[in-house]
């Protein structure tokens, strides 16, 4: 571990520690926004773990997230609370593996299209099962407060950052960067490209499912159309790309401004959120390719402090 690694580790732990103190200061509106931000930080960072190096745009976040909320919704009365995120992680990984096995051997377009409808597909299937069994939405009434959820999410964020850091240093991370640059080269150097992509997609899917399981008590009432709302996938993609996927902290740099903007727009002009989402996509493609990270690196390059 080099000096720089040590410095980054200290900085990251300090920042996370500071973030964890927030509920002591305020448990109202501020905590509510911070919880949303923490949720998106975990989701966007884990999304970028997979989609950053490979350039495969996954729109499946909502499917994994919804799966997680349903695990909590169905199991919180009979199973111990600590088991639910683990089950969600397992199911999320299995779903990701299935999707990955079908699509990740083929080109990126198939993957995007398949994940685009995945949340809607799972929603239709769940609704159908519910109709057959005569079940409706369910109440998740627990003693878990927003503060607990926030702390769980911060812990999850720490875990995701750690995993991302470890992956970037591992052979696996190296392999993924080669795949992202040129898949043919990667294949010729003996990398099992499909396997590497599937494994990483499983991590990303498992994390999204865990976040869903943790967030479920916040919603109190769960039904398929809200749990699997596809908009979540797009929000995650926007935030990650707006921040930039080149660095581990990139998505966080997108989550904070975009969550605030989204909050502002949905309070003042609730019908214009989709327009905002569309304009944000266009902004990223035309003005900010590489996101804030890319901008930061270009500026750094231009005003050349040199040593990164």
């Amino acid at each position, binding site marked *: 571990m080099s000096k720089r690694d040590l410095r980054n580790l200290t900085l990251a732990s300090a920042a996370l520690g500071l973030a964890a103190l927030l509920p002591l200061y305020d448990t109202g509106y501020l905590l509510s926004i911070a919880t949303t931000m923490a949720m998106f930080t975990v989701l966007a960072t884990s999304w970028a773990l997979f989609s950053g190096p490979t350039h495969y745009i996954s729109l499946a976040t909502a499917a994994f997230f919804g799966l997680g909320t349903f695990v909590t919704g169905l199991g919180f009365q009979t199973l111990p609370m600590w088991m639910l995120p683990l089950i969600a992680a397992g199911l999320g990984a299995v779903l990701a593996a299935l999707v990955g096995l*079908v699509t990740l051997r083929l080109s990126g377009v198939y993957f995007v299209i398949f994940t685009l409808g995945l949340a809607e597909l799972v929603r239709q299937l769940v609704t159908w099962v519910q109709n057959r069994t005569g079940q409706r939405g369910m109440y998740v009434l627990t003693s878990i407060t927003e503060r607990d959820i926030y702390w769980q999410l911060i812990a999850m964020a720490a875990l995701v950052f750690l995993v991302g850091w470890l992956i970037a240093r591992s052979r696996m991370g190296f392999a993924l960067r080669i795949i992202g640059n040129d898949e043919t080269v990667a294949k010729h150097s003996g990398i099992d490209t499909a396997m590497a992509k599937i494994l990483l997609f499983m991590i990303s899917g498992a994390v999204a499912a865990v976040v869903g399981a943790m967030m479920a008590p916040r919603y109190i009432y769960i039904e398929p159309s809200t749990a699997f709302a596809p908009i979540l996938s797009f929000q995650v993609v926007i935030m990650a790309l707006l921040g930039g996927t080149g660095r581990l902290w990139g998505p966080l740099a997108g989550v904070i401004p975009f969550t605030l903007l989204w909050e502002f727009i949905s309070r003042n002009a609730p019908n214009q959120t989709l327009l905002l989402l569309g304009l944000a996509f266009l902004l990223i493609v*035309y003005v900010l390719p590489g996101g804030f990270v890319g901008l930061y690196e270009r500026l750094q390059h231009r005003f050349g402090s040199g040593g990164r």
Partner: protein
Amino acid sequence: MFFILITGLLLGGTYALIAMGLNLQYGVARIMNLANGEMLVAGAFAAFWVFTAGQVSPIAALLVVAPLAFVVNWLIYRIMLQPLVKRAKSRGALEVDSILATFGLSFALVGIMTWAFGGGFFNYSYLTGRVDIFGSSYAQNRIVAFSIASLLAASLWIWLSYTRAGLRMRAVAVSPDSARLVGIDVHAVSALAFGLGGAVTASGGALISMFFTLDASVGVMFTMKALIIVIMGGVGDIRGTIVAAMILGVAETFVARVIDPGLTLAAAYLLFLGILLFRPQGLFGKKPT
């Protein structure tokens, strides 16, 4: 059973037209247009609007909808997408860029349409009489929509197969680089194909509005179906697109009638899954060597 087959084929005809529009845009212009469904909804809105405001039949509305959609899509290609094509270093980079840009466009369009027309469902009654075929009765509007869709699809096919402009378009679809070598202006042909694709899809929207209830945000469902049809039929393969659209139409109708109307997307996904697993090159595609 026979009723399901006919209803499915009637639906498939309109699907075929919509998917042909997407196939032109992806096959020739190389743009994976995820705002395709919004063009469809815009076409449907236009037909709805002229019908309720002026009692103009949706078929007459096509005469306005198609040229208008052509111009709009041509401009979209020239202004928004051509810069992306020019800056792209590889096919993969262009795909990511065009997917993100057209997603942006799609959300922006949904936002604008919701703002302009409201978020509610819309439909109108046009040609609601019924026709008897082989002992079961079918709605007139579905049959008319199917006939016009087939007519448009057939003319498009003939135009692509037998005219010089169609030949140019097919040349670009096969290989943009080689097409440039024989003196074809690839950007102009791509813009034309993109505009034409948009016009075809918007016409499909106007037709489908005769018998479907739509709202401003339903576009993505149609994009999804059109994408599945295009992949199932093979990119750039018109015959494959038509067959795939018919299969999807019948499969969807079957699932909706026999199992549950809420599972239509699941039916489409089942087909998609089969294609991805067994024939990723499309129904009639050859295995890449």
